[in-house]
């Protein structure tokens, strides 16, 4: 895979990770119901990038973005969740190969397919993998991490379902008429 990464993809991943950090830092919508939980808009962005640039980009944006976000916000990195962000990006990108967003078509079928994918990927990621890693790496108490994982997972699924879908639909529209987003 080494040499096959085009400059454009490398740059898109770098800048994508930066956007992931900024959204995570400044554009989280707190849920009123459960204190200290957020709708993380950055996962909607991650889903979009994964669909547009593919699984490798999705995985790396999740990995680098989340690791940077952690180290900027807390000074240390919570690896178990970083790994899951990477997996979520990767698998959404992987499954989205069938959506073919570049064709400009993003109708009911694609919306359903996208949302089923993201829901499955995220519930496994946040509900299963993250807690397991937490227990393994940090020796955290089990019942706590499961609840945490499932709440976070559900929130992210909802966020991606609403915002991710809107973003993808908007992106698809720009693909129909002209060749690129660039309008100079």
């Amino acid at each position, binding site marked *: 895979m080494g040499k096959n990464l085009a400059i454009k993809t490398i740059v898109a991943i770098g800048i994508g990770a930066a956007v992931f950090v900024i959204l995570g830092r400044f554009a989280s919508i707190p849920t009123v119901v459960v204190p200290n939980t957020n709708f993380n808009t950055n996962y909607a962005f991650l889903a979009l990038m994964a669909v547009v640039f593919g699984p490798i980009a999705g995985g790396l944006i999740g990995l680098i973005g989340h690791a940077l976000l952690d180290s900027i916000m807390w000074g240390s990195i919570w690896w178990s969740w970083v790994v899951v962000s990477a997996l979520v990006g990767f698998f959404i990108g992987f499954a989205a190969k069938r959506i073919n967003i570049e064709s400009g078509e993003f109708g009911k079928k694609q919306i359903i397919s996208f949302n089923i994918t993201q829901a499955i990927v995220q519930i496994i990621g946040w509900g299963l993998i993250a807690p397991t890693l937490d227990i393994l790496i940090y020796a955290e108490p089990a019942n706590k991490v499961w609840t945490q994982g499932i709440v976070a997972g559900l929130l992210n699924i909802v966020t991606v379902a609403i915002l991710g879908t809107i973003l993808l639909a908007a992106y698809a529209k*720009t693909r129909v008429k002209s060749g690129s987003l660039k*309008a100079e």
Partner: protein
Amino acid sequence: MDITLQDVEYKYQINTPFEHLAIHDINISIPEGTFMALIGHTGSGKSTVLQHLNALLKPTKGKVHIGDRVIDAGKKEKNLRPIRQKVGIVFQFPEHQLFDETVEKDICFGPMNFGVSEEEAKRRARELIVEVGLPEEVLQKSPFDLSGGQMRRVAIAGVLAMEPEVLVLDEPTAGLDPRGRTEIMDMFYRLHKQKGLSTILVTHSMEDAAKYADEIVIMHRGQVKKTADPRTIFSNPEELLELGLDVPEVVKFQYSLERKMNRKIGKTCLTIDELSMALREMQVRGESL
């Protein structure tokens, strides 16, 4: 609607190690119907002042009177929407704020946020798209399919659609080609005259400041250095050059001619016509011999 800034100070990131005093002791009064230009070099605090005009920033000291509202340092303000509607801001590179599916929806976004009906908003969009110099067909296109200059016009229409009473412009023509620049500035001037819009323009172009403004405010290191009408401001080129600012080409020309002739032509001329006329008069009076 009158706007007055009274002893305004603003510190970015106040009470942190990164606290930064951007402007202080600012007193500016903008009576209804004024065309005011704000000049000053990079970092002098122009944009910071602008953002006080519709309460995007609240002063850390002093008061801002906007119509009958008072934004007072330290007091919590609720419901700023009416202010935001009455004072429209066109930011630098406003095309970066476009986001909606079609040009029409994007123009309607502002007014509809302020409770205008969809129908009325669409009517305004149709009217304004022509006003900013684009064909009506553009309304149904995606804003991202337009050229940079066209996007700029759409974004401007989006601000005008809120029907503000005061229009604030932060370098609205940066990056355009000469023709685009003149067209857009002429449009703002027309609106100012026709609708009596108060207009506050931040610009690096001394030509524009001289051509359009009734009053010029010079900012320097976060303070107001001088406030006066264009002729007064530009009749002292040395002072401006000292502040790292320019003067209009005509003024510069007159200045070097005067130095060459070693005498004054009379008043400071702000347009080519004025200057050539003054020179003609001088010649007729036989001062040239």
